[in-house]
């Protein structure tokens, strides 16, 4: 208590300067967060939410929504899909992004042109890309199936078969997510001093050994941070799924965010949707903190 008092007196000015930022944070972050958590413990829906004419009549039901969610088979199915979706995406983002970054990190003619071309998926608004891909996946007229039939293969029911639909949305999102990883990894690669490679060459390392013993270890912290961001973004990647498959067929490409959206604006169960939101948040908080602890341990290495 005493300590706090002292600190308050000593840093009065500092607190004063911090106030505006804290107020803005409170309005933008804490209010919606707290409101969301509170709503998740109610049975609020479109009928009892209250309107201009009708008083709100929803009730506090404690952890009722959570009990319903955690005991429903759909929830576990969708969680499984979310995890698959997230990890398959991030895996390909990372490996393809790193591969391209390694290529682009070399000296060759027209390097700048390639760099710019590879950024295109990032530059195009994502809904445009999503619609383009959706059209390419079209069973009868889509580019992919036309190409397949030209090659004498069977057309694939991209958007109407559960597994293929998952493959389709993942393909789309992998395409979209590569530039971020590529640019981040390229930055990481370029921050590795050239003379380390020269020292390694003189020490007798071939290209492969240079990659495993120098490049990867020194890329580690950049890669871990980028991967964490990638996991969070992909876990919450709403628009691609919503636009390409709409979560279908029969929820087979639904992930937690899209399902939460469905609860809110399909079923109008706002309490339920909020509970989903809180669950998503807690998943990510747990994941990030475990991950960050591991990352921090890595960091100490340097």
């Amino acid at each position, binding site marked *: 208590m005493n300590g706090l008092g002292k600190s308050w007196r000593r840093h009065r000015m500092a607190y004063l300067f911090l106030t505006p930022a804290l107020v803005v944070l409170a309005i933008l972050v804490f209010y919606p967060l707290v409101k969301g958590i509170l709503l998740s413990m109610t049975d609020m829906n479109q009928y009892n939410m209250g309107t201009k004419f009708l008083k709100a009549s929803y009730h506090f039901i404690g952890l009722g929504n959570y009990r319903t969610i955690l005991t429903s088979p759909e929830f576990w199915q969708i969680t499984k899909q979310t995890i698959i979706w997230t990890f398959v995406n991030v895996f390909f983002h990372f490996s393809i992004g790193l591969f391209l970054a390694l290529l682009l990190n070399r000296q060759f003619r027209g390097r700048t042109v390639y760099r710019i071309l590879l950024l295109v998926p990032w530059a195009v608004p994502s809904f445009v890309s999503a619609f383009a891909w959706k059209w390419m996946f079209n069973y009868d007229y889509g580019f992919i199936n036309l190409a397949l039939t030209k090659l004498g293969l069977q057309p694939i029911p991209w958007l109407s078969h559960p597994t293929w639909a998952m493959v389709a949305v993942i393909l789309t999102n992998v395409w979209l997510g590569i530039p971020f990883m590529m640019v981040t990894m390229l930055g990481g690669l370029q921050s590795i001093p050239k003379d380390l490679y020269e020292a390694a060459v003189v020490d007798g*390392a071939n290209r492969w050994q240079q990659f495993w013993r120098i490049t990867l270890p020194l890329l580690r912290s950049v890669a871990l941070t980028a991967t964490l961001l990638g996991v969070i973004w992909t876990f919450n990647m709403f628009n691609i799924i919503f636009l390409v498959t709409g979560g279908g067929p029969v929820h087979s490409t639904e992930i937690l965010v899209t399902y939460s959206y469905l609860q809110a604006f399909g079923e109008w169960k706002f309490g339920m949707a909020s509970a989903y939101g809180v669950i998503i948040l807690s998943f990510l908080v747990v994941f990030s903190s475990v991950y960050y602890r591991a990352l921090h341990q890595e960091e100490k290495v340097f």
Partner: protein
Amino acid sequence: MAGLTFKNVVKKYDQNVVVHDFNLEIKDKEFLVLVGPSGCGKTTTLRMIAGLEEITSGELYIGDRLVNDVAPKDRDIAMVFQSYALYPHMSVYENMAFGLKLRKIPKAEIERRVREAAHILDIEHLLERKPKALSGGQRQRVALGRAIVREPQVFLMDEPLSNLDAKLRVQMRAEISKLRHRLQTTVVYVTHDQTEAMTMGDRIVVMKDGYIHQVDTPMNLYNHPKNMFVAGFIGSPSMNFLKVKLVEEKGRLWLVNPAFHLPSIEERREALTPYVNKEIIFGIRPEAIYDDAAFLEANPDWVVDVHVDVLEPMGAEHYVYFSLNEENVIARLDATSQAKVLQRHKVAFDMNMARYFDMETQEVIHRPGYQTAY
């Protein structure tokens, strides 16, 4: 163990020639220093030996083996980089062991070599640390250790001391010299610091703009520079150069300019005769200028009356700056000197130590008593 041979080695970057027709034989176990001003091609030359830079034309041999197309790892060389280039994610031990591990040397042998090198370099207590947790001098030792454990035929060092403070540099200079006697290996050492070159090298290659100006022992470079560039580059402070006219009067040769009238010694007459009535460059080292009474009395012909512009007390001696015929001259005078700033002072040039250079070619005119090193 092996020597190195350069035969007409040329290095071009695009059309830009940075090393011209380099011919040099480096002997087995020799400590050879490449020295020269910034951008003269020292690093490029060293990197060609390491195989990090392609040789545009000519031949490079390590021992008897032509290595132009041999990969760096097969050249049996080790290199100490100016930046040290320690692997930041590896401990000191791992840094030193890395090259050996890649060469599939047995664990026990690696351990033995690393411990031994660490012992020699006095870094045994640092083996578990990461480079980040080391001081500049310690990093320098680790970089040396990483080269030592490889037991290569040739050590290449690119300005390994330039990142250290002055005091540590002097200390490490002595240690590298000691180490080199202990290891008995050929060393090619790059520096732009002439003191380092003089104190460490068996022979020194003085380079400028990609050309070799002189290859010689330190003492020969000092006493018998081949041209004005070498004369000016070796020695600190630099040799003074004064434009003079050579005239014959009263049976002697005289160096004449508006500020003085100095006789050349008899022994140089023959070499200088072709230059009578022509302008030449008179070179005199700061340490060949005296102001003590005994010297002045013994050589009254060599005395010049000067006006002292600046006086820098260095402790054991004074650096005294004055100008003669609008050319600046530095003298290294004994600390007992009575010279005072902005006052006139009598100094004598030791004409036995005078060097003369051709105005056109900048080459030295005659090198009395010169004997090649090898």
